């Protein structure tokens, strides 16, 4: 039942709004609304009960294991939420003078400095509001750099075929053409293909390392050398930074621009789809182009760097500077873990992934790259199972939901057929991983013995398999009263 269907004309949650309000008799009638908007008329209890019940129809980290490759669904510490929501931080107006927010700025400045240390970059801006927003920022800076040098023939971005879809979409948003390059059998960037596409038109390369295939690009130094020698710059997609924290830094690998997904590596919540935060880091040569604002410290006083401070900046990315509440959560997390704790994130994310890969292989699953060391995630291919039983990766994933596990990432990366991309994260215990292996083995057995059971999954959730085709063909995006 929708909230609108619970509503009754004339019912109100009286405590929530000014009870009596003077009429706006000074406003011209032609500018006023004629009929009331379609908002429910409900009591406070109706609303609380309705949305509490809706929440119970969700999987979440607090209730289920999410081995969701590339998404890093780890525990979101509660202190981060509590402290980011201190009343002074929540009440602060974004345009209030810097003098009224020195405590707030101190937290952000510390985060900025810690991210520089963690990534080995020369400077960081906290402005981007998501990973894809950070990508846009990075590529826009690369473009601004070439343009400032009059090097305007560089209009191509090179992207491996295993990359996240946001990489090519970002290149397009920055007015660039995408040159896709293949991956070799070992899961590495095909160096010959890279050498063949670089040239005077190359603006840069976008790369995730460890890649979305869950392996470290061993030839990373050579790859960046090829790009740099051709006059291009290198962009690091930080989606998998959690795999290498404290082990190797993008700045040391030679990248010119990076983004960091705070909602992954620094454990801020996913919130059912957002908000995230995607701070960017740059090497020295891109510093003049950083987006505004970023936090400046001058004689012990913090303030935003704004238009007058950086004439070559690519500009503003949001009205008020970014997702501050997310940044504060990441600050709390980084302060609680400290430098040593952050390195342990990579250690135990990698331990869990390699353990899970080993156990699944023992249970009869095919790893996409069995001869490689897994990073923080790895790929299982169900192609043989599908050929034998007709059960596809999607069916398999839906059946896992019945066993109380969120599905791994399915059908990404696209170059591995019938794939499950699995990322356990460091916050899960051995017992949870073992239970997941048991469920995987059970579903495999079901696929072999009773494939229809798996193809019809899920069976135990609030709804059964939903009709995506009908949803797209007979669009129903808003309720209408009957």
């Amino acid at each position, binding site marked *: 039942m929708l*909230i609108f269907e619970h509503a009754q004309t004339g019912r109100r949650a009286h405590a929530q*709004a000014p009870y009596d309000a003077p*009429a706006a008799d000074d*406003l011209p009638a032609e500018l006023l*609304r*004629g009929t*009331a*908007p379609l*908002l*429910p*008329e409900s009591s406070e209890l109706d*609303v609380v009960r309705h*949305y509490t019940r*809706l*929440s119970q129809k*969700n999987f*979440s980290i607090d209730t289920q294991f*999410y081995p969701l490759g590339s998404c890093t669904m*780890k525990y979101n510490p509660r202190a981060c939420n509590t402290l980011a929501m*201190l009343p*002074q931080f929540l*009440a602060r107006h974004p345009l*209030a*003078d810097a*003098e*009224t927010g*020195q*405590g707030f700025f101190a937290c952000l400045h510390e985060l900025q400095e810690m991210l520089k*240390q963690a990534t080995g970059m020369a400077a960081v801006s906290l402005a981007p509001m998501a990973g894809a927003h950070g990508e846009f920022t990075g590529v*826009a800076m690369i473009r601004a750099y070439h343009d400032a040098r009059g090097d305007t023939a560089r209009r191509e971005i090179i992207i491996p075929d295993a990359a996240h879809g946001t990489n090519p979409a970002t290149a*397009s*948003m920055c007015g660039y053409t995408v040159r896709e390059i293949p991956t070799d059998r070992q899961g590495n960037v095909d160096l010959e293909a890279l050498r063949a596409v670089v040239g005077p038109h190359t603006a840069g390369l976008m790369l995730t390392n460890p890649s979305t295939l869950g392996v470290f690009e061993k030839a990373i*130094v050579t790859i960046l050398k090829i790009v740099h020698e051709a006059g291009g710059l290198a962009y690091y997609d930080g989606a998998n930074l959690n795999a290498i924290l404290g*082990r190797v830094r993008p700045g040391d*690998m030679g990248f010119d621009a990076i983004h960091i997904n705070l909602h992954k590596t620094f454990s801020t919540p996913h*919130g059912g*789809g957002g908000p*995230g935060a995607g701070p960017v880091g740059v090497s020295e040569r891109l510093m003049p182009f950083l987006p505004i604002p970023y936090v400046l410290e001058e004689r012990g006083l913090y303030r935003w760097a704004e238009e007058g401070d950086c004439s070559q900046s*690519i*500009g*503003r*990315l949001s*009205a*008020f*500077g*970014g997702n501050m509440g997310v940044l504060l959560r990441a600050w*709390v997390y980084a302060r609680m873990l400290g430098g*040593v704790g952050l390195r342990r994130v990579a250690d135990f994310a990698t*331990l869990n992934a*390699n*353990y899970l890969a*080993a156990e699944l292989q023992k249970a009869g699953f095919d790893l996409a790259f069995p001869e490689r060391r897994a990073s923080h995630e790895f790929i299982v291919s169900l192609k043989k199972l599908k050929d034998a039983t007709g059960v596809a990766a999607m069916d398999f994933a839906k059946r896992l939901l019945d066993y109380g596990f969120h599905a791994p990432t399915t059908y990404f990366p696209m170059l591995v057929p019938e794939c499950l991309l699995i990322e356990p994260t*460091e916050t899960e215990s051995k017992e949870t991983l073992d239970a997941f292996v048991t469920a995987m083995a059970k579903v495999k057995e079901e696929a072999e013995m009773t494939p229809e059971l798996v193809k019809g999954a899920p069976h135990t959730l609030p709804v*059964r398999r939903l*009709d995506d085709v009908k949803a*797209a063909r007979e*669009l*129903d*995006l*808003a309720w209408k009263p009957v």
Partner: protein
Amino acid sequence: MPFIPHTEADIAAMLDSIGASSLDALFDEIPVDLNCAGLGGIPPSLSEMAVTRLAHGRAAQDGFYSSFLGAGAYEHHIPAAVWQIVSRGEFYTAYTPYQAEASQGTLQLLYEYQTMMASLTGLDVSNASLYDGATALAEAVLMAVRANKAGVRRVLLPDTVHPRYRAVAQAMVKNQGIELVGVPFDKASGITDLAALEVMAGEAAALVIPQPNFFGALERVDALTDWAHAHAMLAIAVANPLALALLKPPGLWGEGTQTRGADICVGDGQPLGVPLSSGGPYFGFMTARQALVRQMPGRMVGRTVDLDGKPGFVLTLQAREQHIRRAKATSNICSNQGLLVTAATIHMALLGPEGLKNVALSSHANTRALIDKLVSLLGVERVFSSPFFHEAVIRVNIPVPDVLRALRAQGILGGYALGRDYPELADCILVCATETKTEDDLEQYRQQLERILSRRNGRDPSVPPCAYK
């Protein structure tokens, strides 16, 4: 080891299963010369108790103010129930609802949100949100250019649109060869100058129409919408969603029976249950006419049925999005501001149509009362003649930075100094009084301003300095 559950025995058993000798051995594919020696530059770990003390100290340092700042971010009362429900782990720690069967809570809520926003704006379809109001405007500009069959890459963007929104739109569209052209405003009324628009007509894919505009003034939206359509442009509304509880919805803008209303509406959803939070996270909303649905960026939720014919909800029209279309997607956006939309939906459900309208009316009435009080002072005048929603511009006869600094010393944030963005308005302040302000709050502002003006204009203060802080 914060948040890492492994015992020594677990580690040994797991390494044994892998066949690795140590944790270090798991990193043997990373070239040795790239290894860093750890993160010694990051301060040591703090306990939860220690970080709590640190954060409380920082927050206390910032304190509280009586704020009359608006300029795109507004202080409103948020019902206690809103963030208590939003903070439930099932919403707070859920992933994007790609696995629909395991995400019916989030998906149904988004469908309800889309319904509310479509109705509030008077348009057919809503997406599930964008980053903020400014990026939503940039996406609307890109959308209008995509929808323009003649390939026109020029959009009219009046000077009365929020300066930050204009800056963001510029940063986001400039690399695609799209030109944003300013439109001046009438100096007396503070709204977009229709005569200037006639002069600059030319080709454009869209006209952006703010309501209320950055000065709080109400634009002549019917005439602007009709003008855009008469010149083969789309009309993009930039609206405060709270104001739309009171004002004519963009989908009905225009006069006469031929009008089709604004084609796209965007704005910032912050006034709907999102705290000021030093600037974010907020959320951008976007609604549009049905005909434009396949040009929209961002996630959308559709209602469908399951195998048994039972109603349910899924993310739909995903063929527009980056994870399917890659370089040809409508946008690179890969998230929505889900948690803020959750708050807004619950907020709107609690307030209902009448409650939301009462918030709008009270905010309007309070700002009227404040303006009346302030312009009664010698040295203060109202600048623009147009009717306003809940913000208005005053001019003061002593330097604005001095006024605002002196007010701040008394615990009052007096408004936004317009000279930052409009040099010709260097002696002007944009002030806002929402429903959260009491008669006493307004009176304190008046008294303090009077004291400051009197002192600086060389007269004896008619009211003694107030002890209130």
